[in-house]
């Protein structure tokens, strides 16, 4: 697979003092879904803006679809589709009119524009609503329209900035299906930012976590979760039993044991292998297990470890601009 996005030492300094992005390097292979995660203000949007030609690169270089972003912004714009966080479809126009306008702006005219628009609208199940004004659309419908508005010119890379922001769980998983479909059926490379870690886990082939302008960690979701140190088994024994920390630590594969009264947290790379040995040992010692549970590591834990923040504390991107709030309301409107 060839690399379709490459960034080397990419840096953005605003007004000569605010370093929003600090020498980051990464690459995205063709046909991949690449997730860019990070807390608010970490540098996600600035990075996307540099790749989309909306922000000048202060230092370093980046190329998209084989074109240098600084030297040939026009060629880059021709090969990318951008679905911004904001809902930019025109309220007063119908879904179809919005699509056709977008097609004209990408030099697709007449019949081709109409045909492509209808095809894409039916892909996201908006055929019935195509002739209705966007004003009457629900938040989910707007997001779907927005998604296909970025696809009319058959871009090589699709940039999605928070594609499911403000959507309910059901609508969100529907969006995932569309994005997966575009990636699998059309071989479209997707570069996305998201606040929903389970979304990144389920959609992305590769993930990079950015914080304070630098990439803290990157890899496949499985690789990232391995860095947390594997699964965690939580065991509760009956009160008054002896301290078993040393016993657990002696079992093969166990990495770390912490004890609070009679509750033990055992970290191990693969629960499936070590759990039988743990249970067998306890039975042999004739100890009664009151409760046993194990958890697989999540991206939440990875995120917490590398950024020191939980994604849940973050919630949706914050903004003090009134218009931002209007956008959000639009997104969640029914």
């Amino acid at each position, binding site marked *: 697979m060839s690399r379709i996005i490459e960034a080397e030492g990419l840096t953005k300094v605003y007004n000569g003092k605010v370093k929003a992005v600090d020498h980051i390097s990464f690459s995205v292979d063709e046909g991949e879904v690449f997730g860019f995660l990070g807390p608010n203000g970490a540098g996600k949007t600035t990075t996307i803006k540099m790749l989309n030609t909306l922000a000048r690169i202060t230092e370093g270089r980046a190329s998209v679809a084989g074109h240098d972003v600084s030297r040939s912004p026009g060629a880059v*714009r021709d090969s990318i589709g*951008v679905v911004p966080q904001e809902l*930019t479809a025109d309220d*007063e126009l119908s879904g179809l009119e919005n699509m056709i306008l977008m097609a004209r702006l*990408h*030099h697709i*005219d007449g019949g081709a524009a109409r045909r492509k628009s209808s095809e894409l609208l039916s892909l996201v199940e908006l055929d019935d609503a195509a002739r209705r004004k966007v004003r009457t659309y629900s938040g989910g419908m707007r997001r779907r329209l927005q998604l296909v508005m970025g696809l009319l010119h058959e871009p090589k890379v699709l940039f999605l900035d928070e594609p499911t922001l403000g959507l309910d769980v059901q609508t969100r998983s529907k969006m995932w299906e569309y994005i997966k479909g575009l990636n699998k059926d059309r071989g479209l490379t997707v570069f996305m930012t998201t606040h929903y870690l389970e979304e990144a886990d389920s959609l992305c082939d590769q993930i990079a976590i950015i914080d304070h302008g630098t990439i803290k960690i990157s890899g496949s979701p499985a690789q990232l979760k391995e860095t947390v140190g594997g699964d965690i088994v939580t065991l509760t024994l009956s009160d008054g039993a002896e301290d078993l920390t040393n016993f657990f630590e002696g079992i093969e594969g166990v990495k770390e044991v912490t004890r609070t009264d009679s509750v033990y947290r055992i970290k191990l790379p693969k629960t499936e292998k070590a759990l039988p040995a743990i249970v067998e040992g306890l039975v042999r010692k004739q100890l009664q297990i009151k409760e046993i549970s194990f958890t697989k590591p999540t991206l939440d834990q990875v995120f917490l470890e590398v950024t020191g923040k939980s994604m849940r504390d973050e919630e949706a991107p914050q903004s003090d601009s009134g218009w931002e709030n209007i956008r959000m309301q639009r997104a969640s409107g029914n």
Partner: protein
Amino acid sequence: MIGETLALTSRALRKWVHNPAAVLPGFFIALFYVALLGSSFNPTKVVPPGTPPQIANSILSQTFGGAPTYITFLTPGVICIILVFNMAFGGIDLVLDRQLGYLGTLLTAPIPRSAIYLSGVFQNLAKVMLLAVLTFLVALAIPNGLQLPGTFNVLDFFGVFLAFGLLGLGLSYIFTALALSVRSIDSLVAIVNFLTLPMTFTSNTFFPLDVFPDWLKSIAELNPITKANEAARLLVINGGLSSAQTTTFLWDIVYLAAFAVALGILGHLAARRALRPE
């Protein structure tokens, strides 16, 4: 580039057509200016009663360039006010486009930056010129309103709107560039408020230049709004022009065309700066 400019302009105008009520505020402002301000001043009353008609007429023709009613004199001025104010505040739509992210979408599409700017210029111009024509028709419909001479023909009508069109184009160039350059509606409104009133008051919009003090007159003579009013009034008051009047009219047009070209160049430079990557 022409294709994209047309696509973007038609998007804006289509939105406008979908919402015809958007023209109402502008229309009412025009109506109030013409019907109320225009009617509030009856020039025949400044002539003392008992003045022989010949002398009275000569006083009146000197005061308002021979206009039979104040509305006839004022209508071109009101059209200029409509042009200046609607053009200036029309930029709010563009600031909104930036704030709502629509401009970002345009900037990541393979569209020449100047198409984005020019579509703003043309949509503003189209909307405001429609209002200008509407104002003219309203003034005509009002009793004792705009009274055109018998010799006024279609060509004169086009002459009037050629002058307004050039003034409008220049204003649209600069106000569109301004709207693309600011980041918030507040700052646009602040700048626009600072510009529009002095622009209007240093022109012959409400009163003829002859009654101006010398210092103000010399400023007002350079104001393109004055030139547009002068050109329009020549036609509206006289109809068929004498050769001296034709020369004045043509010089006004040349002046306005130069104004439009200059602001076009300035506007393009400012817009290019405003639309480059951050």
